[in-house]
């Protein structure tokens, strides 16, 4: 095992412990950035490393990109948060003590997610996801406003139950595997399970998958398990909304997909596809309709995240090399784009002093750089070229229609439904005569534009290795 992978995990852990001790929030925020940079550097070295899987950790085509992505978004978000929290302190929404806690939690959160991504042991995976839940709950309730506490509470209860169900699913997996590979760690080690998945009793796998899908699916935010997501995004600090949408949802989905691979490899199980497609489409339509009535800009984009998770779930549900590729690409694109949007939203909310969409008008006039950035982000997430999301949606829709015309029609309808709402709102937000108060923007827009640049690049050209990784994973997902 190269030291890189453990180091990727250790760096944020150590940083978290350090940050608890740092009283000055300015220093802390930049320490935070530094720690993320180190993590990212370590994560990037993983591209070259090809370590063998251990009982606890694994590095393969699937998680290597996600780890890098997580580290990257973690870094950009930390930069954004450094410029964001200053204003929050100035406006008295946060005090240094809470910020100390916030930075520590931020690193802890990154740690749990990186752990979940690199875990080879299903138990560790579960513990990591649960840890991610706990840390984010704390950060969602950071403002201690009634609404934020209520959101955190809802998030906590719903995801707690979800986590519980996921654990039951995990136990079932072990139960199914234990007769084949004997008691002990082996029967909970993902690589081993995948290797002799064919021998495992398929019926228990079915049962297990149901619990895992419902359990982890709660964290993915698939309807009807989505209820926690909009409020958690809306009431927490915006950097947290960014990492929730950009990273946590992906990690939860990653967990589901790992188990889908098990089923695919087993062959004799039920097809998990229809289940995922139904949940995906329902999320898509629910979010699409919900978008029309949202008045809170952050909740608005939270629902858009639900929509996209629905699209991704649908893609993996229908399966096949092209659709799976589209799903993976969409995961990456969505996390980059959506976090970028939340950076822009964060600045916009601070500049206009409100989270209500009605209060935010004519951004391209009042804050051109921000306004056009937000516009580009929303257009990208709406699936307009030349951004990367278009490519995944292109592959998904064309491929689906050739195979399942009716489903493709539903998919297109749902996407158009959401598209209508997005256009409606983005025009209100970005164009027209500016209204209300208008403060200068604090901090840099670099993270926003960095993400947009990546998404644009991906829309025009994908690097070969990435494509190769995605294709192998697509094959594994069946």
């Amino acid at each position, binding site marked *: 095992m190269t030291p890189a992978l453990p180091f990727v995990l250790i760096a944020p852990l150590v940083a978290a412990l350090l940050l608890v001790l740092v009283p000055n929030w300015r220093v802390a925020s930049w320490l935070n950035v530094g720690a993320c940079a180190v993590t990212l550097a370590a994560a990037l070295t993983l591209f070259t490393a090809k370590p063998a899987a251990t009982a606890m950790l694994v590095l393969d085509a699937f998680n290597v990109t996600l780890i890098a992505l997580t580290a990257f978004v973690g870094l950009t978000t930390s930069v954004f948060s450094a410029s964001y929290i200053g204003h929050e302190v100035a406006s008295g929404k946060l005090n240094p003590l809470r910020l100390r806690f916030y930075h520590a939690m931020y690193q802890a959160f990154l740690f749990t997610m990186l752990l979940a991504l690199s875990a080879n042991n299903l*138990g560790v995976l579960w513990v990591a996801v649960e840890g991610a839940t706990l840390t984010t709950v704390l950060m969602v309730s950071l403002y201690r406003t009634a609404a934020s506490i209520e959101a955190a509470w809802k998030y906590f209860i719903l995801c707690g139950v979800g986590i519980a169900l996921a654990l039951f699913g995990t136990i079932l997996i072990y*139960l199914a595997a234990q007769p084949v590979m004997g008691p002990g760690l082996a029967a909970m080690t993902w690589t081993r399970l995948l290797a002799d998945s064919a021998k495992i009793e398929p019926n228990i796998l079915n049962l297990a998958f149901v619990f895992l899908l419902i359990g982890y699916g709660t964290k993915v935010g698939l309807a009807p398990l989505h209820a926690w997501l909009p409020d958690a995004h809306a009431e927490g600090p915006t950097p947290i909304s960014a990492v929730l949408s950009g990273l946590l949802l992906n990690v939860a989905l990653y967990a589901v997909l790992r188990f889908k691979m098990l089923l695919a490899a087993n062959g004799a199980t039920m097809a998990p596809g229809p289940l995922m497609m139904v949940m995906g489409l329902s999320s898509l339509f629910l979010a699409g309709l919900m978008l029309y009535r949202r008045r809170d800009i952050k909740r608005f984009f939270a629902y858009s995240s639900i929509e996209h998770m629905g699209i991704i779930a649908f893609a993996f549900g229908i399966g096949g090399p092209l659709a799976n590729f589209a799903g993976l690409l969409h995961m990456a694109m969505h996390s980059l784009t959506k976090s970028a949007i939340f950076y822009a939203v964060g600045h916009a909310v601070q500049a206009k002093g409100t989270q209500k969409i009605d209060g935010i008008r004519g951004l391209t006039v009042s804050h051109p750089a921000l306004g056009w950035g937000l516009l580009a982000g929303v257009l990208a997430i709406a699936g307009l070229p030349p951004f990367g999301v278009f490519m995944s949606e292109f592959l998904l829709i064309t491929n689906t229609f050739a195979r399942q015309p009716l489903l493709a029609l539903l998919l297109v309808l749902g996407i158009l439904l959401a598209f209508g709402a997005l256009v409606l709102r983005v025009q209100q937000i970005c164009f027209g005569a500016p209204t209300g108060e208008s403060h200068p923007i604090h901090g840099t827009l670099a993270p926003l534009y960095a993400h947009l640049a990546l998404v644009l690049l991906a829309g025009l050209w994908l690097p070969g290795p990435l494509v190769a990784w995605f294709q192998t994973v697509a094959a594994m997902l069946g």
Partner: protein
Amino acid sequence: MIDIGYDAAHLLGALVLLTSFALLYQRRLFSLLNVFTVQALALSGAAAWQGYAHDEPHLYITAILTLALKAIAIPVALHRIIQRLHIERTVEPALGIGLTMVAGVSLVTLSILLVLPVTENATALTREDLALSLSVVLLGLLMMISRRNAVSQVVGFMSIENGLILAAVGVAGMPLVVEMSIAFSVMVAFIIFGIFLFQIRERFETLDMRKIESFRGESD
């Protein structure tokens, strides 16, 4: 030996299931807590017995943890809360008790229906114990949604957890059981802390969820 082992485990498992039915039945918070304590005791017994039967010492830790936290610490804490916050002692269920019982029974049938056929090649003990734990989990969920009161929801949540641990100790040689039960206990602790937090903040006069649900950010 095995027979006794089987019977004892079976007995304890059945006791856990029974208690979660009893939980569904309770109207008064204190008796709810008492029943829960019984369930925790039964669970720790089961864990200990399994540890003894398959001599897996780490299960003893689980047993002790369960005993310490679930059977002693948490019930006591909840008692204190109830007294401190002057929660009225009887909670009106959201679903009628009768209805809840019917639902519970059908859930148990469902779980047996699900588990028994799929585990032909598993040991009878595992199978039994899986069916039991699945029912316990489902009953716990039912408990959570059939009660308006936060305390009873916490209890419901914890009985789900009991179900999980029951399953975990049931399957031979399951690793990381301890770690998981710890992680879970942390979560439970969080919930209780949460309740305290609400009380301290004095944002919610009561723990009745209807108050908490009163606002969402969407009002303008």
